[in-house]
């Protein structure tokens, strides 16, 4: 067989946009796929995870610890026992909320980086509700009231960014990040003033009464109703995005705002609604943490749940079901980190490295699955 190996003198590639069928040479080539499939996407994520674990094991061995033993400890701490698994779900609960909050906004290509701040605003809303309502009413009224005010506060906090974006064209990435700092300072102001527990030296509120405590789901462990609310929220987010005309508009704006405009979809309305909803979901995380595990509002109520939620959303490819899975995995990492540190001496901070690496590799995989390596047929 005579290979026709003349490199074509094709005109400059950017002169033509919709060109797929170039003349072929005989070498391996990387080319863009026209379509990807679900197994490629899932496979990409799995490969990315493996790559993240391999890379972290280099770090572990560099730190002088036993790699296998470390991962075994990590697994044991996250999934190894029933109690460990239950605690993993507890850890995953706020992450599901914040992951959903990010995923919803990102579907419209609205980059809400303020999940952390909106979570705090939500927690403040929930606590505020308790101050207004006191102990006079049954839990069935008090708890929903806390959640509603939490959502309103989360939405309101994100709403500031929405107004700045749609009225003045200020990039929401900047405003949502900045608002994170502002809310923390507002909280600090309140906790050192009117909201401070008079009986406490610390900047924290008094403990909310038991009427506000979310019901426990299991006889042992800390798993609370917030986990089920998170799952329900995921289902609702999926339904809204996939099955409603509003969700269609959100996805259209994300896919191509110009086409959406010709289709009569008013971007600004959707941008505002998307940010409000995203903020409300993040606000739920705050209420769930406050009423589910802590019952006392204090500056450390979130350990970077908002920021981790962004990573979770991206690793989950912005899919609600994926968010649940990835959030549980992230919860297990956080939970297992302690066990790992105790048994092998590897610092718990390593899990942050693993999470970060996972994101990097998943983003890499997300790009790479769009390409394939092909050896062009020589018969052209």
């Amino acid at each position: 067989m005579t290979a026709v190996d003349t490199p074509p003198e094709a005109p400059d590639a950017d002169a033509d946009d919709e060109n797929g069928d170039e003349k072929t040479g005989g070498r391996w080539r990387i080319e863009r796929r026209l379509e990807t499939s679900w197994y490629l996407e899932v496979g990409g994520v799995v490969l990315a995870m493996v790559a993240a674990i391999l890379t972290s094991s280099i770090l572990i061995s560099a730190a002088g610890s036993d790699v296998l033993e470390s991962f075994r400890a990590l697994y044991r701490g996250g999934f190894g026992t029933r109690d460990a698994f239950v605690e993993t779900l507890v850890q995953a609960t706020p992450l599901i909320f914040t992951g959903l909050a990010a995923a919803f906004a990102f579907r419209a290509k609205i980059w809400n980086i303020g999940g952390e701040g909106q979570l705090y605003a939500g927690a403040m809303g929930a606590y505020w509700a308790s101050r207004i309502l006191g102990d006079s009413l049954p839990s069935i009224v008090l708890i929903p009231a806390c959640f509603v005010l939490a959502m309103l506060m989360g939405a309101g906090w994100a709403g500031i960014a929405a107004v700045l974006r749609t009225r003045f064209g200020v990039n929401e990435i900047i405003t949502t990040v900045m608002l994170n700092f502002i809310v923390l300072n507002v909280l600090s102001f309140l906790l050192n003033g009117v909201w401070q527990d008079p009986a406490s030296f610390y900047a924290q509120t008094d403990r909310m009464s038991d009427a506000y405590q979310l019901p426990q789901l299991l006889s042992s462990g800390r798993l609370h109703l917030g986990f089920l609310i998170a799952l329900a929220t995921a289902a609702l987010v999926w339904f809204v995005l996939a099955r409603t005309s509003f969700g269609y508009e959100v996805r259209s704006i994300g896919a191509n705002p110009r086409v959406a405009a010709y289709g009569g979809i008013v971007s600004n309305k959707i941008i505002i609604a998307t940010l409000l909803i995203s903020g409300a979901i993040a606000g739920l995380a705050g209420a769930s943490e406050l009423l589910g595990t802590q019952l006392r509002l204090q500056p450390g109520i979130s350990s970077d749940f908002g920021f981790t939620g962004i990573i979770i959303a991206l690793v989950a490819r912005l899919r609600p079901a994926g968010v649940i899975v990835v959030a549980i995995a992230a919860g297990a990492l956080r939970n297992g980190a302690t066990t790992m540190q105790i048994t092998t001496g590897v610092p718990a901070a390593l899990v942050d490295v693993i999470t970060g690496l996972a994101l990097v590799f998943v983003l890499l995989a997300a790009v790479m699955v769009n390409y394939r390596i092909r050896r062009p047929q020589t018969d052209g």
Partner: protein
Amino acid sequence: MELLGVHGVTTRFPGVVANDNVSLTIHRGTVHCLLGENGAGKSTLAETMYGVHRPDEGYLTLNGERLDLRSPKDSIAKGIGMVHQHFELVKPLATVENVALGTTGPGRLDLGKVRARLEELCEAYRIDLDLDTPVGGLPVGLQQWVEILKTMYLGVDLLILDEPTAALTPVGVERLFESIRRMRDDGLAVILISHKMHEVTGISDRVTVLRKGKVIDTVQTDSVQAADLVRMMVGRSVELSKATNHPPAGETKLSVTDLVAGEPSERGSLCGVSFDVGAGEIYGIAGVSGNGQDALFDTIVGVREPDGGTITIDDTDTAGMDPRTVSKLGVGSVPADRINQALLMDFNIDENIGLGRHGDRPFSIRGVLQRMAFRRRAEQAIEDYEIACPSASHITRTLSGGNLQKIVMARELEGQPDLIIVHQPTRGLDISAAENVRQRLIAERDRGAAIVLMSEDLDEVLSLSTRVGVMFDGKIVGEMHHDELDLDRIGAYMAGVLDTTDTHEVVV
């Protein structure tokens, strides 16, 4: 004296022959115009001389010697410079810095030297430009001067300007021409790409007319009349592929009066467009692109709010209405850019078929998407329009241009709209796909729809339209009934030589 020779150059892009066996010579000390309609191959030819494209056949010579350009870097080294329509300037930097960028080698940056040379150039060619203002703060017309200076600074023998007057005011054009004349007198060769007749006759020494990638002729400008050039440009003893019979127009469906959008100095703005279209009529709008077609389309369909004038559909004034409301009045619209205006490429075919009506029955009931409605509608469209695709739930991105256009047509013609506005409906389509679209339009007209057909394909406009209006500089400068079509006049309207709506200053 010959500077640059183009010998039998053919340049192909997938599906198109952009330049077909083109030969011409450029002489020192002359201004040489490349004249032609959109898609005639002017820019490709210029970019070939500038080393952007390598010819598939043929070759270039410089001073009689074979010239092999691999990239613009080579051409700059050989003294060939080009200023594109889209500027490549660093906006926060001043002119001096922009010129220094990429023209000075590594090591110490000697802005003083650059400035001295620039001041010389400005002096020599009477260029009035503040070298220290950040270029982002300069008007577009002056930014072009920065680009020209960048090129001149490198010392060129041949300067290629791609539609340099598009962004200029009449005074700016005169200034530019004055400088070009000085450059010519200094022995430079200047190539000017244009489709405006008065500019061509006003500045050039020689003209090469291109049509559909071929050189029609190269002539001395003073040896021909503008009318001859127009004929060469649009020319073709047009085989008006008879758009069959033209039924008489019914009642007026769309009436546009004195429509204004944007500033008159802005390229592509509307400066008082008026026309109306009746039921059962195709109103064709011809014209070179950039004369306001996009703005006209956008204001009628509701994407852009006009700054003045009225748009009346049936008896409703729709100026400023949003696209959904306009569409509900019974208007179907096919925008020029399928990929960036009409279709969500990452959505499935069936999702796209409902875009615009996605919130209404049958596609939505109380805000919940009815996926079967999308699916059924898409399957119907696939059958009716013979859209080649694996299934209705297939991703849109993978389809060919012709099939994409069929999806848009199927969506927009659904529900038998009374008014249909199509912009560039066959651009980029192969012959059979284009023919398919045209047959649809005729069928819709026969059904009684009023159709506005905007196209840069003059053949298409002439062959389908009941009446033809020609757009130039944001206005309809002339209008003709299908039985009085006169190519010379249309060409003159398109080139801005003739304006029947403006009796005050008829340019000859």
